[in-house]
């Protein structure tokens, strides 16, 4: 198990309370909060995951700026998220051995 109950509860509490705070906050904070949640999850599991996943957590995911918001640089923000998404897509392909399945 890569996540203890305490750690899972921490993430759950973050997600639930973020759902509430987002009702009142700037719309652009929604991406920020999701990235923060991803970062907190990463911090919780980084020592217990496979080397490939750890490389993603400490590499592309860590490079996503903590406090960036879309309005400061819309194109740059989307591009930085695209980079993280590309990396997570490749991680999924590798982790689940998608390209090594018998066809």
């Amino acid at each position, binding site marked *: 198990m890569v996540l203890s109950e305490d750690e899972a509860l921490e993430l759950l509490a973050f997600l639930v309370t973020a759902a509430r705070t987002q009702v009142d906050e700037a719309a652009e904070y929604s991406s920020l909060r999701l990235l*923060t949640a991803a970062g907190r999850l990463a911090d919780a599991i980084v020592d217990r995951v496979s080397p490939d996943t750890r490389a993603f957590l400490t590499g592309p995911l860590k490079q996503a700026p903590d406090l960036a918001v879309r309005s*400061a640089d819309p194109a740059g923000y989307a591009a930085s998220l695209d980079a993280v998404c590309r990396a997570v897509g490749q991680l999924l392909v590798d982790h689940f051995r998608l390209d090594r399945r018998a066809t």
Partner: protein
Amino acid sequence: MTNSVLEAIRTRRMARALTAEPVDRADLEELLKAARRAPSAGNRRLHRFVAIQDPLTLRLLRMVTPGMFQRPTAIVVICIDGGRAESFGMRPTAKGLYVDVGTTAQTVLLAAHSLGLGAGVVTSFSQAAVSAVLNLPEGWSPEMFICLGHAAPVQPAGMRPRGNVTWQTLTHWERFPAKE
């Protein structure tokens, strides 16, 4: 001109990364004394402070505070005492209540800076969850956290690049001209 107050205003920054070094109780008490000196509309004193240093309580507060990037070793929670506000005939939405949250926060931020502490304000939390974690009295609403600690040497990049904001760009002198 050397003016320590103006210098403190110029050099204060929000600390969004803090070390694990605890805040001395004596320093925390100095900040609370400063908070007590903050402007309060009508000297009504409708705000209450909850000071937290217990590590587990700090941890739980962080769990229900999506806007908390730092890991503070102390928090001052600025609360509005709704019952006391009501006794003055104030509605819960009266803007003065929230203006005083801001003036209190700025007073504490400057006091923290003067003591060499790192501090940052956070308002992105669930008031309902925070009330439950702190077991706040009926009628008290938590409005702002002042997260305290010792600033880490490296701070995360800000939300936006620093633009060319000057006091002049923020200021208009005298009356606006009549529309043609």
